């Protein structure tokens, strides 16, 4: 479904990504792990289209996406749940979720989509008229995930969902992602710092290190590979 070939991104001379190639097949769950500064978020943004100046090729469902701006990629069915959640804090929970289904293909299914999301996150049903900015970190995470699901996406991009959350909430988040994966037929690309949790959930993984793909493999192979540690700590 998603094919990245030879992606390189530099910001004014800074090489964030160099010649990265990876693939996500339909229905697969792929994880990208690696330390900070490895370029994981840059990679996500290159896929969803919010950075310019990327060279290389990006194909979605066989179609070249490289020249499309972010909002058009989202309209195609790619839902990006960004790093730090980035929910609309001055809008209510309900409005946030409704905006998730802004793209035409999802608008028709708004009502049923909403029911499904509220069933997944019952807490949000109570809080639906509350301003999203007033919610706790974990609840905001639910809004962000819910907003992504409301787009009825074909490809779900999750950028460091555990960031800035307490341990219990992180556990719940990963459980939720697992549940989402099992209940809907979604293709998921997850970027995470927490190695084990991320690798356990996925089918296949890639390890990024200073802008390049250092390792790749099936999730259990990577989990057992001590070289992953070197990517993080240098020794």
């Amino acid at each position, binding site marked *: 479904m998603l094919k990245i070939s030879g992606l390189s991104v530099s910001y004014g001379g800074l090489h964030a990504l160099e010649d990265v190639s990876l693939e996500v097949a339909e229905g697969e769950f792929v994880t990208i792990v690696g330390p900070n500064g490895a370029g994981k978020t840059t990679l996500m943004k290159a896929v*969803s289209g*919010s950075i310019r100046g990327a060279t290389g090729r990006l194909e979605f469902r066989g179609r070249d996406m490289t020249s499309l701006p972010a*909002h058009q990629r*989202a309209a195609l069915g790619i839902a990006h749940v960004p790093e730090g959640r*980035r929910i*609309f804090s001055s*809008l209510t929970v309900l*409005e946030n979720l*409704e*905006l998730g289904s802004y793209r035409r293909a999802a608008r028709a299914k708004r009502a049923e989509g909403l029911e499904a999301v509220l069933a997944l996150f019952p807490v949000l049903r109570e809080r639906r008229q509350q301003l999203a900015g007033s919610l706790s970190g974990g609840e905001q995470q639910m809004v962000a995930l819910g907003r992504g699901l409301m787009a009825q996406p074909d490809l779900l991009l999750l950028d460091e969902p555990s960031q800035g959350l307490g341990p219990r909430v992180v556990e719940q988040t990963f459980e939720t992602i697992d549940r989402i994966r099992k209940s809907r037929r979604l293709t998921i690309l997850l970027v995470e710092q927490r190695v084990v949790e991320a690798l356990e959930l996925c089918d296949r993984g890639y390890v990024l290190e200073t802008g390049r793909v250092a390792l790749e493999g099936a999730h259990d192979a990577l989990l057992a590979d001590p070289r992953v540690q070197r990517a993080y700590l240098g020794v």
Partner: protein
Amino acid sequence: MVASELTQYVVTGLLVGGVYALMSIGLALIFGVMRVVNFAQGDFMMLGMYLTYYYAVVLGIDPLVGALVTIPPFFVIGLLVHRVFLARVTGGGDPNREMDAQLILTLGMSLIITNATTMILSPMPRAIRTTYATRAFAVGPLLLNQARTYAFFMALLLAAAVYVFLTRTDLGKALRAAADDPEAASYQAINVRAMHGVAFGVGIALVAAAGGLLATYYPIEPNVAVNFIVLMFVAVVLGGLGSIPGAFVGGLAIGLVQSLTLLVLPLQLQNVGVFVAFLLVLYVRPQGLFGRRARTV
């Protein structure tokens, strides 16, 4: 000072403030979504006054209705102006420079609009004659000028319509999302650039309508903008740059300030009260009543 006299000042201030509020909402919407301070806001208002005058004198449409009818053409004008001019100004990629450059661009627009209007139409002030401009309602001991009262209620109606638009329609919510977090908005398939155009169009349309309402009791001439642009700025800053309910409250407040200043200062110095209030807000609480925390150095 008799209580009823004070109340008269307060009521007059509020009536005038209603129209200020409508003008300011347009400015706040543009700033909220685009982060641009539109110096030309007063000039578009002036054009709205002239269009309403045309409707009244040539087509015989009552200005209160005429004000509403300025909305569609000015929305289109706003979209075009954004597309042709504002969207082209990027200041070289740096967002701060972009804001400065767009601000100067709107200043240039303001100059062209005011001066071109002076060139094409004569600078002689015109007025729309209506039956209600000179009459007043008597409510107890208070006298409410009819034109101002009608204008006030129309302004409230339009403000309410804007509220419904922003909170009940998909497009309105998308505008608010683009104002809140443009990057995240683009992830929801919202075309943020197009939202800028819509915000500008709506902002211009609202201020043109406010001009139409103003024209029921205020003389129409090309230089009218300069009297109101600062009032609008003050209202928006008082309410909190980018906050629409804030701009509404700010507009009402400025109307009050202007009116109550007359209790202490002569008519000539009326606006000094407004400007001093402006400085006080900037120094003491730059984020205004409803705005987010502003950076101080």
